[in-house]
């Protein structure tokens, strides 16, 4: 039932608005609203009960193993939430002067420094609100760099076929053409194809390493050389930074620019789809172009660097400079981890992934890259199960829900058929990984004995499989007071 269905004319959560109804008599009638917006009219308890019950319909890290590949669904420490929401941070107006922002700015400055350290980059801006905005900022800086040099010919960004969809989309948003590079059979970028593709038109390359097929590209140094030699720059998509935290640094690999998904590696909440935070780090030559604001320290004082101090900046990406509350959460997490904890993140994320891959292979599932070490994630291809049992990756995914596990990422990367991209993260126990293996085995058994059960899964969720085609064809995107003729009506 929608909250709207619980609405009754005149019902109120009275305590939540000013008790008296002030008259407004100085706004011209023509500019005033004629009919009240059709927001629900419910009591405070109705709202609390409705949204509490809705929440219970979600899988989440706090309730379920959630091995969604490329999303790093690890534990979000509860202290990060409560401390980032201290009134001193929450009540601060974004336009408050520097004199009244030193506590916040100290945290941001420290975070910039920590991120510089773990990425090996020369400078960091915390401004981007999410990974995709970090990508945009990164590519925009590449663009600004070439433009500043008068190098107008560079119109192409190279993107491996295994890349996140955001990579080509970000390149296009910055006015580039995205040119796809194939992945070799061993999971590494096809280096010949790459070398054939680079040239004076190459603005740069966007790489995830370890890549989305779950392996570390062993030719990274050769790739870097090749692109740099051609005058292009290297962009590091930090989506998989969790796999190498404290072990290898993008800066050392030769990358010129990187974004980090703090909601992955630095464990800020995913919040049902966001907010994220996508700080960017750069090599020295890109520093002038970093998005603003940045925090600088001068003795014990912190101050903002904005457009006036940074005339070559690619600019501002949001009105007020970023997702501060998320940056604070990442900072708190980083301080709890400390220097020793950083490396442990990648070690145990990698241990968990390799263990889970080994167990699944032992159980007869096919790894996409069996000869390779898994990074913090790996791919299982269910093409044999699909062929022999008629049960595909989506069916496995849906049936896993019934077994109490969130599904891995399905059908991504696109180059592996019937693929499950599995990322267990370092915070899961061996017992939970074992339980997941048991569930996979059980589902394969079910697929043999009772395939319909798997193909029509899930059976124990609040709804059964949903009609996505109908959703797209018969658009029902908002409740309407009069014409609530949807399936719900």
């Amino acid at each position, binding site marked *: 039932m929608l909250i709207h269905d619980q609405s009754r004319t005149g019902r109120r959560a009275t305590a939540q608005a000013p008790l008296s109804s002030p008259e407004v008599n100085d706004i011209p009638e023509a500019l005033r609203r004629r009919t009240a917006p059709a927001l629900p009219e419910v009591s405070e308890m109705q709202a609390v009960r409705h949204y509490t019950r809705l929440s219970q319909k979600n899988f989440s890290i706090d309730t379920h193993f959630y091995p969604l590949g490329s999303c790093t669904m690890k534990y979000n420490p509860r202290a990060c939430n409560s401390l980032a929401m201290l009134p001193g941070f929450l009540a601060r107006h974004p336009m408050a002067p520097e004199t009244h922002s030193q506590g916040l700015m100290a945290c941001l400055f420290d975070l910039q420094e920590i991120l510089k350290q773990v990425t090996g980059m020369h400078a960091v801006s915390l401004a981007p609100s999410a990974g995709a905005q970090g990508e945009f900022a990164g590519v925009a800086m590449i663009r600004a760099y070439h433009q500043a040099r008068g190098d107008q010919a560079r119109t192409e960004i190279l993107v491996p076929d295994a890349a996140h969809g955001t990579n080509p989309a970000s390149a296009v948003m910055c006015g580039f053409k995205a040119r796809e590079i194939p992945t070799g059979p061993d999971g590494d970028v096809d280096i010949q194809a790459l070398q054939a593709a680079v040239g004076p038109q190459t603005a740069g390359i966007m790489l995830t390493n370890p890549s989305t097929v779950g392996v570390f590209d062993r030719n990274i140094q050769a790739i870097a050389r090749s692109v740099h030699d051609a005058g292009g720059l290297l962009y590091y998509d930090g989506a998989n930074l969790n796999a190498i935290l404290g072990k290898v640094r993008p800066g050392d690999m030769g990358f010129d620019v990187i974004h980090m998904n703090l909601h992955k590696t630095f464990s800020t909440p995913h*919040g049902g789809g966001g907010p994220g935070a996508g700080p960017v780090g750069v090599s020295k030559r890109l520093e002038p172009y970093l998005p603003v604001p940045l925090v600088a320290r001068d003795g014990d004082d912190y101050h903002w660097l904005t457009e006036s101090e940074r005339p070559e900046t690619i600019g501002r990406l949001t009105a007020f400079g970023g997702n501060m509350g998320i940056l604070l959460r990442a900072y708190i997490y980083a301080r709890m981890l400390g220097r020793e904890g950083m490396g442990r993140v990648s070690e*145990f994320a990698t241990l968990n992934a390799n263990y889970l891959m080994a167990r699944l292979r032992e159980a007869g599932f096919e790894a996409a890259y069996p000869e390779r070490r898994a990074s913090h994630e790996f791919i299982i291809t269910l093409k044999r199960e699909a062929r022999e049992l008629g049960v595909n990756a989506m069916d496995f995914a849906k049936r896993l829900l019934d077994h109490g596990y969130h599904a891995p990422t399905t059908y991504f990367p696109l180059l592996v058929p019937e693929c499950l991209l599995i990322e267990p993260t370092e915070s899961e126990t061996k017992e939970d990984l074992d339980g997941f293996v048991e569930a996979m085995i059980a589902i394969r058994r079910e697929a043999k004995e009772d395939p319909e059960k798997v193909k029509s899964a899930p059976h124990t969720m609040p709804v059964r499989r949903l009609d996505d085609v109908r959703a797209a064809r018969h658009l029902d995107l*908002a409740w309407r007071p009069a014409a609530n003729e949807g399936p719900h009506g």
Partner: protein
Amino acid sequence: MPFVPHTQDDIAAMLAAIGAPSIDALFDEIPEALRIGELDAIPAGMSEMDVTRLMHKRANTDGQPLCFIGAGAYDHHVPAAVWQIATRGEFYSAYTPYQAEASQGTLQLLYEFQSMMTALTGLDASNASLYDGASALAEAILMAVRANRKVKSTKVLLPRTLHPAYRRAVRSIVEPQGIELIEAPFDPETGQTHPAQLEAAAGNAELAAVVINQPNFFGVLEDVDALTDWAHARNALALAVVNPVALALLSPPGEWGDTGADIACGEAQPLGMPLSSGGPYAGFLCCKMALVRQLPGRIAGRTVDLDGKPGFTLTLQAREQHIRRGKATSNICTNQGLLVTAATIHMALLGAAGLERVAAACHNNTRALSEMLCAIPGVEPLFSSPIFHEQALRLPTPAANLLGALAAENLLGGFDLAADYPELGSAILVCATEMRTEEEMQGYRDKLARIVATVDRAA
């Protein structure tokens, strides 16, 4: 090992299953030369107790000054229920609802959010949020340029009365795609942007869209009907930038002019998000149904399951980067889900009547404050027009000095207009939301009067 559950026995058993001699061996495909040692410059790990002490100290560093700044971020009451529910683990630690059946909580909530935003804006469709108001406007502009079938133009007209930070962010985001932004001036008497000024700024250029903000950055109310009709007469799309709380009182974009604005966007912060030093907030973006396939960002839709039972799912995914890659409507991937959760609960708790009371209380407080301040010699309204909940004032001496003196007394007196609008002289923007009491406003007046008098004596 914080947040790592492995025992020594676990590690041994797992390595045995892998067939690796050590955890380090799992990294053996990484070129040795690239491996790093200790990250010495990063401080050692802290316990939760220690980091709690640190963060309390940091949070308490700056006191909590009394705030009379609005300028795009508003200090409204947020019901206690909002964040107690939004931070429940099931909302807080879930991800984008890729598996719809296991994410009906988030999905239904997004659908309800979309329903509420379309109700507020008077438009047909809403996405499930963007990063903030400014980036939402940038996406709205890109969308308008793609969507306008009548005019093949990359020119967009936007008023100089639009929030300066929005203008900057929009520029950063849309210019790499070759969008040309033309700024229209405002009437220095009224603070409004009239069709004549749009006309003058645009000349004969074809326009993909015209941005109309209500109220504008100065809090001034624009004649949105005339502006919308002007845009449509030029075959440009009318793109509204609005404050969602203001919409409880003001005419919704869908009803502006003869046929309504085509797109509306803005900042959802006033709907249950604390000031939070600037973020995370959430941008909203609504449009007419005809434009929905150009709408960027996640969209939840209602459909049915195998049993015909209603349920919710992400829809129109063919627009998005994970399907369309380089041809997507935007590179956007995440939305601001947690903030949308808060906004939805907030709107459910306030309702239309509650939001209207909040809007009216803010408006009347700002008016009352403005009157109090204007009793001080040399302080006067900058513009003559009707306003909503934000007032531009002229000050007798440089605003920076006065604001600095107030800040030294732990009061943030307003937003200094000097940097962005030097032509206005010494001027600030003040705002008193429903949170400010009569006593606090009088305190502001008394402090400012004293400071102005001191400066006068000094001069």
